[in-house]
């Protein structure tokens, strides 16, 4: 009998996250973002966290649960993101003032390098060379190497304690399917993490209901599943529903 990984609610699923944990949070521009788990982590209140995600959260309304909120809550020591400021001067991320005042540390990482550092961590590869960022400020003082006539920058794997991800569908053993661009960083973070926690949009299916050929992320790297309740009970079922 396979172990059922379903948790009753979001708070139970994040109850053991300790101070100082490294948390990877999936999502790209909305799709695949585990808003409910971020909100639960804010309620949990664990501190000195390192948060890994594509961005720290948007400058736009409606405000969704994001790393910026955890920062405002005093829970974050460091973020590792491909955006630590908006590209438009008129947009100011909620996170930015905490970064500029030195309350929070940040490491900016090109998006493909961020993805590959997570992939490497999940794949047992400690480091790799990439052509990305060679010749830029990001490469200053760091190890580069010429291979076959081209210069590459050394990048290290990025292991994770807890991954927060969101999927469309799951079975009881944690096999996952994502819908459309919901996939983004989520499968990589699941692979990179010691513990993967998933908020699931549809009712959790019995084991075997997702055919083995159709699995995007294998249940082997998924530990906790929480069904997102339908609105109005479950907030943020879809980003735009909150706006309507």
């Amino acid at each position, binding site marked *: 009998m396979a172990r059922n990984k379903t948790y009753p609610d979001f708070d139970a699923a994040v109850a053991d996250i300790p101070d100082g944990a490294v948390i990877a949070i999936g999502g790209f521009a909305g799709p695949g973002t585990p808003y409910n788990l971020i909100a639960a982590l804010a309620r949990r209140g664990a501190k000195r966290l390192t948060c890994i995600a594509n961005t720290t959260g948007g400058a736009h309304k409606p405000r969704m649960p994001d790393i910026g909120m955890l920062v405002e809550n005093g829970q974050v020591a460091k973020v590792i993101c491909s955006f630590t400021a908006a590209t438009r001067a008129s947009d100011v991320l909620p996170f930015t003032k905490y970064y500029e005042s030195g309350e929070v540390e940040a490491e900016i990482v090109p998006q493909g390098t961020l993805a590959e550092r997570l992939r490497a961590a999940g794949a047992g590869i400690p480091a790799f060379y990439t052509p990305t960022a060679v*010749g830029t400020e990001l490469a200053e003082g760091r190890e580069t190497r010429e291979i076959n006539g081209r210069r590459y920058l050394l990048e290290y794997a990025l292991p994770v304690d807890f991954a927060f991800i969101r999927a469309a569908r799951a079975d009881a053993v944690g096999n996952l399917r994502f819908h459309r661009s919901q*996939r983004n960083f989520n499968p990589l973070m699941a692979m990179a993490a010691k513990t993967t926690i998933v908020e699931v949009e549809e009712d959790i299916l019995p084991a075997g209901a997702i055919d083995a050929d159709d699995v995007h992320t294998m249940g082997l790297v998924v530990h906790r599943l929480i069904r997102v309740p339908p609105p109005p009970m479950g907030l943020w079922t879809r980003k735009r529903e909150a706006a309507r």
Partner: protein
Amino acid sequence: MSWTRMQMAERLVREFQDGWVVNLGVGMPTMIADVPMGDRDIIFHAENGVIGYGAVCAPGTEDLNLVNAGGQNVVLNPGASIVHHADSFALIRGGRMDVTVMGAYEVAANGDFANWKLKGAKGGGIGGAMDLAASAQRVFIMLEHRTRDGASRLLPRCSLPITAAGVVTLVVTDLGLFAPSGEGFALRDLAPGVTLEEVRAATACPIIA
């Protein structure tokens, strides 16, 4: 007279060749997906792993879990596919983007460009720009020729931290189409009603006509 942003997009699209895989960045370049491609078969790639997307959705028809790099809800064209971020950037670093089109703050005669960090800022926004700039076959830049204060965005060397060194192939501005040539920019096309003298007066380095 000069080109509107849509006309800038249309002018760049004339450079696309049949069969190209085209990556579109955030901002101005997203308009390119709305330009008719004629009988050319063009595949749009978004860094979040969407390959073969099309126009922005009509209101009410969106799939809220499907966005392009700019977070816009788009349609999938027949034959589209979706992969995770590591595969998406493997395609990019693997050299499979025939061109990436990006916005920028500055572009330089030596082929450098800057689009991730503003003057005096501690943080920045890189997104996929450094990966794309380093490894796409061509880098096309779309930007206004001058800042709001009238300063040239086409420079001998970038003043802001660069995104990649020596990679820019073509630059379209409201005034014309240019190619970095080392010491200046080679003029490829002028917007209607714009004179060579006006372009030279608006540019902080030589224009080779």
